[in-house]
């Protein structure tokens, strides 16, 4: 299904209880696989988050209090309990990147995506956020989208990168 920018792709709604249970089962319902389960859910959900209702299913299936799942979700900064874009655009805010003007990179993305740092685009495709060092200081300031890291950025390059993700959807 192709989704036009500006149109809701309703990712969160098409991700159901059955999908959550399938992930829990994949990890043998083991309590010590909680982290892996939550990461998978966040990834598969299409909204880069773990909603309360999904956390509740995990808790029920593996026999932990919901509060314990919540504790884990809030302890690690990679998790979100609020829906985010399908793609997380993460700009490094560590000292070396700051020195070579990561703020300008933030501004470039803000302009291209039409949102402020910390916000999600209306089409729910991108969330723009800060991250800690991604270990690519040599090409800093860097932006990370999913597993891909981009450096030596210019406004043109940013536009190109963003469009490549838009086209995927």
């Amino acid at each position, binding site marked *: 299904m192709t989704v036009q920018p500006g149109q809701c792709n309703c990712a969160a709604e098409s991700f159901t209880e059955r999908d959550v249970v399938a992930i829990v089962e994949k990890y043998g319902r083991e309590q010590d696989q909680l982290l892996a389960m939550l990461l998978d859910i966040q990834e598969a959900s299409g909204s880069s988050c773990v909603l309360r209702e999904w956390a509740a299913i995990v808790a029920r299936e593996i026999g932990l209090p919901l509060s314990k799942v919540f504790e884990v979700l809030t302890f690690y900064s990679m998790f979100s*309990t609020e829906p985010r874009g399908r793609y997380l655009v993460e700009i490094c805010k560590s000292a070396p990147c700051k020195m070579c003007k990561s703020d300008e990179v933030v501004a470039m993305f803000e302009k291209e995506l039409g949102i402020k740092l910390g916000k999600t685009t209306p089409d729910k495709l991108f969330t723009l956020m800060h991250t800690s060092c991604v270990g690519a200081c040599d090409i800093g300031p860097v932006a990370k989208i999913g597993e891909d890291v981009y450096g030596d950025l210019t406004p043109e390059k940013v536009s190109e990168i963003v469009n490549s993700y838009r086209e995927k959807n």
Partner: protein
Amino acid sequence: MQPDCKNINLIIDGVPVSVPEGTTILDAAKKVGVKIPTLCHHPDLKVRATCRICVVEIKGQRKYKTACSTEVWEGAEVITNSPGVQQARKMVLELILAEHPQACLGCLRNTKCELQALTAEMGVANKNRLKKTVKVLPLDDCNGAIVRDASKCIQCGRCTEMCQEVQTVGAITTANRSMSYDVTTAFGKKLRETTCVYCGQCTTVCPVGALYEHDDTEKVWAALADPNKHVIVQTAPSVRVAIGDEFGLPAGTFSEGHMVAALRRIGFDKVFDTNWSADVTIMEEGHELIHRLTNRGVLPMITSCSPGWIKFIETFYPDMLPHLSTAKSPQQMFGALVKTFYAEKAGIDPANIVSVSVMPCTAKKIEAARPEMNDSGYRDVDIVITTREFARMIRRKGLDFCALPEEHFDDPMGVASGAGVIFGTSGGVMEAALRTVYEVVTKKELHALDFKAVRGQQGMKTAEVDLDGTPVKVVVVNGLKNARKILNEIREGKADYQFVEVMCCPGGCVGGGGQPVGTVRKTKASRMEGLYTADHKMNIRQSHKNPAVISMYKDFLGEPLGEKAHHLLHTHYTPREQQ
């Protein structure tokens, strides 16, 4: 001190002291008359050592140690109050105070707050050098039992330890880390939207006014002020050995006479006793047990008088509900009878009766509000106040509790047996039941009334009773972690018991979630003793021999488990969702 236990010699503030191996510096210091300040530490909970207010200096070491978590060692030289230590403690306190509302005058914990006391002791008030960054967070006060004021939370973690580890309910948890570290519920929801069972144990360990009981005293004052209302009160067994704490009496003092007098002065039209309905509970529950034993009913039968426990089993073990006795709790039996039996006897329109109860328990507020608890045709118990709220009413009335001449309960619902009085402690319901069941089954007189095996604060106590050739195995648990253990055993078919007593709070009602601030294991032990001593002094120590109960059955109810009893005194349970 066991003889085989090694002793450790050390010096604290220049004073030599010898303590058993494994003692913490905190406890060792008490022996030389030094009180080291604490905040996250609670004597009955696992040590977390997160607040660092208790730091001390060790001679020869640069880094300070936390006294609550550090065990003594041979030859240690501890300095508890050097200028450096004072400075470090001040810093900890100032950081907390910078984020704390400090609204003491309007705070329920005013004069009973550990943070307030510490601030006064350390002379930090008004001298805080840090900028104030108080966060105003929403107050959670919509469940009718427990209030959570997160703005006042100092993140000590005592409540999470209690809720997660001791009660295994898991309603409150820690969240986030470093600067945004927080104590909250899952997804920041209100307690009503969590698995909270309203046991109130978190309110008894919170050092500040961040967790406390929902106050219903205004409702009581309003009822008392209404000339058209006949306001009666019942008092739970354990209140009479706890209320004295609030007025400076030694822990465990049996102050029934003062308590009754105070209630009369406050203005109740009749002062009755839940011990009376505890005896009624034994009549019903005891006969139910006999019925199940002789008719191949669901066994083991589990007691049902602790409402936090009821919510727990409904939430976490709904498949086990058939094990619960259908007998209502003494509070609810009393409520159903006061608006029927008493109303009839006294010639009062039940519509005009306001039935109030004084309970050691926050969950009792929820129990009274359950939709099915209106078998009298009205709400059976209208208002529930805890021991703490009762103390507040005594103060507001301006009564000098200890100076009040002692008085007696009113008739007919104020006459109780020794079995009724011990309901207030873990093991008491079991003992009371056995005293009656034995005689009903064997038709012989029971001479040894004390069942010492089920007494005390251990989390799990077992005993075997010989009912004229039929051995009955019983187990008594207190604290929900232990309840969980027993339920798992029963579910797995590993438990060979016929009768199980469960009380939600550690130690039973003497340690209830509505008891005075500062209740710890030692206090509970004194209260237990107070109850057993009172029982021992009584002439009638068995429920079925209570003349006021016998005549109530004769004139009004008929037989235990009979039709009327069934309608008024028995109930049903509701499976609940976990999240």
